[in-house]
């Protein structure tokens, strides 16, 4: 329970709060421009005048300051995502992988800043803050920090652990040629920790300030980043030439509905899943548009495809389409809070996913393998690495088992329903994250 504040303590708290309130106004400016600054300032002053009791002011002050932390962690996680996309392009274009490539530096900066910020917040919450702030945190091994901070620290430690492991892996089995390897998976979990940590901090702030649209958008941004980052681990499996296979169908059915369902339920915005999927698509499409602008040539052989510019990742999956359906479904749900209601909703969401996403992606991938996608917008001719031998396999689908078979659709339905159900359940928990 919050401890009682002394009069002197409350005065100090109010002073700190006013300082931090100005800082929060700045964050509003970043998000919404000059109007945002005025609105944010007005909101903050109103909230200050409405809740003038020592405990609440102090709780507010801590919460306001942590919005900055959430924003900083989101920026750090975004940097890591940019770095990872750049690194994949680097491997496909230039090839030479050293510790100090620019892409690696961006990842280090993102990871290090998230780790340092989180470490500092844990120390601050444990030793240099009052009981009220500590009450809004989670205890772990004698320390205290918001849950997202702990997860972020865990992610940073996992990333650090993966470094010597990965180095040994290169010496034992050769330099990177595969995305999926045990040290890379550990790195992925580390990055996932950073992303989840940032997401949890944003959630905490969003749930504490449901009126803040900026925090709502920030949460959607982070949710989109986590979704695309997880899908990105399976870049090879979701490559355009594989998008007609039952494996692709099963994979996306198992992954995407979870994220969309969780986001639409946890978001304070009406179109949470749509914004998350849309912003994620825009983010990756932007990287896809920007990278091929820069000239670059391979520095490794054998070169079977002499690229002249940075190679792009394929056009992002059309997750915005099922996201719209998920948002609409959530908006039209019956207000019954039970697992059976969630299951029925998940079943509807799964049908929507299979009916909307799979055919859309099926048709889009056909277009994508045609010459119609050979332009800057879709970058269909800019995704092949220097190591890829040009041939008919660039423009034809893998001869896998096709997705549109009855066993495949039954499997997808089960996966998508389970995934969406788990997503809706998680989304409910996410609305409860308060510290």
């Amino acid at each position, binding site marked *: *329970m919050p401890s009682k504040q002394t009069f002197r303590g409350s005065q100090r708290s109010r002073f700190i709060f006013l300082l931090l309130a100005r800082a929060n106004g700045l964050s509003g400016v970043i998000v919404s421009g000059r109007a945002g600054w005025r609105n944010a300032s007005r909101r903050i002053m109103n909230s200050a005048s409405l809740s003038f009791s020592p405990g609440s002011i102090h709780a507010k002050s801590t919460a306001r300051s942590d919005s900055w932390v959430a924003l900083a962690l989101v920026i750090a996680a975004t940097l890591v995502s940019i770095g990872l996309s750049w690194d994949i392009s680097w491997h496909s274009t230039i090839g030479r992988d050293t510790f100090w490539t620019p892409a690696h530096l961006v990842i280090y900066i993102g990871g290090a800043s998230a780790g340092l910020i989180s470490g500092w917040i844990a120390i601050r919450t444990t030793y240099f803050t009052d009981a*009220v702030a500590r009450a809004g945190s989670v205890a772990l091994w004698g320390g205290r920090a*918001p849950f997202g901070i*702990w997860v972020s620290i865990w992610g940073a430690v996992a990333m650090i*652990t993966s470094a010597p492991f990965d180095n040994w892996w290169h010496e034992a089995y050769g*330099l990177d*040629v595969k995305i999926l390897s045990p040290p890379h998976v550990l790195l992925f979990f580390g990055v996932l920790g950073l992303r989840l940590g940032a997401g949890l901090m944003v959630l905490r702030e969003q749930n504490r300030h449901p009126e803040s649209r900026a925090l709502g958008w920030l949460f959607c941004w982070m949710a989109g980043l986590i979704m695309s980052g997880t899908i990105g681990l399976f870049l090879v499996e979701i490559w355009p030439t594989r998008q007609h296979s039952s494996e692709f169908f099963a994979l996306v059915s198992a992954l995407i509905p979870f994220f969309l369902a969780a986001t639409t339920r946890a978001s304070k915005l009406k179109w949470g899943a749509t914004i998350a999927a849309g912003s994620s698509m825009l983010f990756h499409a932007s990287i896809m548009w920007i990278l091929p602008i820069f000239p670059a040539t391979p520095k490794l*052989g054998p070169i079977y495809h002499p690229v002249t510019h940075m190679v792009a990742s394929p056009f992002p999956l059309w997750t915005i389409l099922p996201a719209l359906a998920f948002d609409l479904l959530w908006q039209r749900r019956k207000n019954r809070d039970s697992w059976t209601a969630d299951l029925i909703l998940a079943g509807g969401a799964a049908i929507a996913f299979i009916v909307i996403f799979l055919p859309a992606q099926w048709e889009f991938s056909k277009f994508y393998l045609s010459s119609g996608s050979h332009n800057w917008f879709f970058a269909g001719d800019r995704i092949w690495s220097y190591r890829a031998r040009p041939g008919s396999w660039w423009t034809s689908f893998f001869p896998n088992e096709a997705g549109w078979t009855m066993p495949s659709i039954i499997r997808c339905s089960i996966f998508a329903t389970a995934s969406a159900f788990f997503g809706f359940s998680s989304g409910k928990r996410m609305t409860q994250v308060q510290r």
Partner: protein
Amino acid sequence: MLNDFGDWPVYLRREYNMKWIIGYICVALFGINLATAHVGSPAVVCDGLAGPYAVRVIVLPPPVIPGRAEINVRMLGQDVGPVKVTVLPVSALAGLAGAPPPDLAEPVSGEAGLYHGELWLMSSGSYSVHVTIAGSRGGGALVVPVVAAATRTLGMSVLLKAVLVVLGVILLISAATLLSLGLRQSLLPPGVETRGGVGTMAVVFLVLCASVYGGKRWWDAVDANYRHNEIYHASLLDGSLGRSDAHTVLHLAVGHDGTYGGEALSLIPDHGKLMHLFLIREPQLDVLAHLHPARSGPRSFDVILPELPEGHYRVYSDITYETGFAATLTTAIDLSRTSALVETKMAAPKIDPDDSWWKSTSETNAKEEDWLRFVGERRFKKGEDVNLVFKGTSASGQPVNLSTYMGMLGHAAVRRSDGSVFAHIHPVGTFSMAAEDFFNAQRARDLGLTPMVDHSHHHPAAATSEVSFPYVFPQSGNYRIWAQTKIGDRVVTGVADVSVD
């Protein structure tokens, strides 16, 4: 077309015989591979001319592919002033068209005329390294054949193991705590404390442990695949003896997919021979035969054995595939009771006039090895490029000029006493001459030039009584070196025992 590896990955999946197991143990224990181009001797040394510049090129291939090879280029002879040295690895399968831009080799400070660079070898197989030199005397290039193959399994140091285990345990326990107690607390309003939850944590911990176990299984699968399919293993070689036309005939079969039949070997000749065979009596190392089997089938060769003493012989067979990939296949035979061998109806192969053999105790008064004597110190350091010099000497101790033997001034075999190292080398280096011809022709084709086989650098410019073999000893120990050349029309063999620190 034959692949680069002599079909090595396939048979290992089906056949785990004693040769493989012994090889595996050697790899595991000593980090050495019994079966590469040469045996346990990965460094490539090449003495040659890059246009007007005499150079020695030393390439140390990486033990794992993809990996980075080290390359040193040493200017030989007179000071030629500052030069620009570039190095470029070219895959046999992709040629110059698939090669990246060359890299500049940097001068090594404190070592005049020495240049150092790195070569990124990204796929297993046959490569040529193009060394280009430009300076005040003009420019030129030298092509050095290199085999890129994974040859090592790497253990983890105790320190790294400890660090990873400690960090792993911390990550595991903290993840279990966060996913149970942390998650539970995070959903509560500020200030509300929880108790218990240890049971949940234990369950989560067990689930995470199961995931880690799954990860370990995956790692084991990657490791097994690496050991069986990625590490280079030369094709199996089977040696059997028979009698034909009153000769003892050694029949050699090269393995393929667990059998000794199947697709024909596509080889290119080295000094006009498809196979160079060395038989060395173990453990005395007192008999050496250098023979040239004739092809008797798609994957088999026959050779008449000279009158060799009875005993156990190690057999080393040097071949070069049509992609320029040089390999040394090994086996062993027992030459006891050869008279009891059954006479076969097959015709005996012709005796190759270049076949030669040596026994440590000559029946003549003068020991043959005294005619070709090792010159200089007999102690070397591992990892350093050295010259192994032999000098032709008459019975009176006077120098005598040497003649070429199979197009070269000399051939030498280097073997570590325990057999873990074997290399067949020449005065121009440690690479396969057949591979050199192949890559020079490929370079000429890629550059639109007329392919020309130029062996002029294989011969000395003037008559000489000395023959020198460049070499890098890969590990410390005691070695025996056999050098062969001709004095007049007779093949002579000089022998030297050296120690390497």
